[in-house]
């Protein structure tokens, strides 16, 4: 169980709260949506859950224990901008295998072509990079996935294909997902319940 208990965040001691008093749970295998207008703090909350940001108030727990500070984090984030999530000086084959070696079948299902792997990040589009980033984050030690506007840069067909692959993969392995989006249609389609910020 991934839990946020009374999580709040603000920048500076007297700044306004960006996220305040949020309680949230994601069970293994469950797909939860997080909806909110622009600026509502969706990404901030996602970053707190993924351990990128220490909350000012409250805490995040995985199976009752606080988020581990070292070792592979069971909660993995997929961010909105894949071009920032890959090292521009690494060939993509190295980036893809940074955390684990994704099987050929998964790469095929995500629509990753073998020809991309010899290239560098600036030679691929945002949507192509995002598929590599998704494959990288789906390792066996990932128990929860925070997908922050994961598919906004993709066309509708590729979006559907990517979601199908990720959902199948997570269902098979009992990975819980938090889907952050402002797209109501997407959330109602993939999530079993949705939280509004």
């Amino acid at each position, binding site marked *: 169980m991934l839990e946020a208990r009374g999580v709040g965040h603000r920048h500076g001691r007297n700044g306004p709260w960006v996220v305040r008093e949020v309680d949230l749970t994601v069970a293994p295998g469950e797909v939860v949506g997080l909806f909110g207008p622009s600026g509502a703090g969706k990404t901030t909350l996602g970053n707190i859950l*993924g351990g990128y940001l220490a909350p000012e108030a409250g805490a995040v727990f995985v199976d009752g224990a606080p988020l581990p500070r070292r070792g592979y984090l069971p909660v993995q984030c997929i961010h909105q901008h894949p071009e920032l999530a890959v*090292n521009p000086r690494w060939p993509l084959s190295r980036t893809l295998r940074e955390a684990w070696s994704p099987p050929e079948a998964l790469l095929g299902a995500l629509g990753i072509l073998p020809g991309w792997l010899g290239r560098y990040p600036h030679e691929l589009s945002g949507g192509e990079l995002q598929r590599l980033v998704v494959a990288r984050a789906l390792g066996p030690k990932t128990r929860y996935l925070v997908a922050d506007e994961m598919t906004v840069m993709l066309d509708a067909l590729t979006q559907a294909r990517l979601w199908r692959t990720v959902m199948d993969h997570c269902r098979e392995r009992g990975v819980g997902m938090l889907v952050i989006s402002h797209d109501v249609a997407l959330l109602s389609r993939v999530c079993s319940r949705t939280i509004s910020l």
Partner: protein
Amino acid sequence: MRAARTVFPGSPGLAGLRLAEALGLGSRRGRWLWAMGICLAVFAAVPVLAWLLGDAGLEPDLLARNQPPSLGHLFGTDSLGRDMLSRTVHGLVLSLRVGLLAAAASSVLALVLGVASASLGRAADGVVSWLVDIFMTVPHMVLLILISFAVGGGARGVVIAVALTHWPALTRVIRAEVLQLRGALYVQTARRFGQGPLAVAATHMLPHLLPQFLIGLILLFPHAILHEAALSFLGVGLSPHTPAVGILLAESMRHLSTGYWWLGILPGAALLALVKCFDILGYNLDRLLDPKTSQE
């Protein structure tokens, strides 16, 4: 290049084009590699030339005083009849040695201080940034003269003075780079994948720092050479008997108005060419190491 590819078979341009393609000149990458190779060859040629010319030209020959450039003396002779080509080449060898030592010491200092400043916490950052500010506010030349004078002048003084005054700019660059890298999403993500701080530094940060360091080192080189020349010119560097470019230029000042132009212009042009070679080397290495440009 694109226009040249449409040359019809049999036209005279084709053979030249084929030759260019075979030598790798068709791509920018190939041209960069050639340019770097030529620069390295120039650096290697200087000590070889000094060895070939020997010390003979450094002795005074009062029968051949103040001769303009000729086939016997390509750079002419000075007022004591010494061959200016020999003196210039020996001077450049000394410049290269001083420049290499000073630039290497300076950039290693910059790397250590820059990385320490960005990763050892606020106190270390404060101290290093303060030192950088201090060294940057004092006029360069004054500091160079003071340090060189304090350690007793000579080649050693020049090396120490240049090394101690040239680290601040590169330190700032490396500090900024490390700070930026630490905040980068891919570095943070690597930590979430369970990689330790040292592993992340070695695998993710080093590929970004290495080009900065190498290019900083190469671009410090001309600075070091020019400052060596400047210090010697001012009289606090090398002794006036050593054939150094700075000394040659200082001597030539006295003869500029009397029409002995070759005494100043030819050694000056040789120094300029050497410095420009370093500039070209650094610039091309930068583009070659960056994946965004290296495949062109």
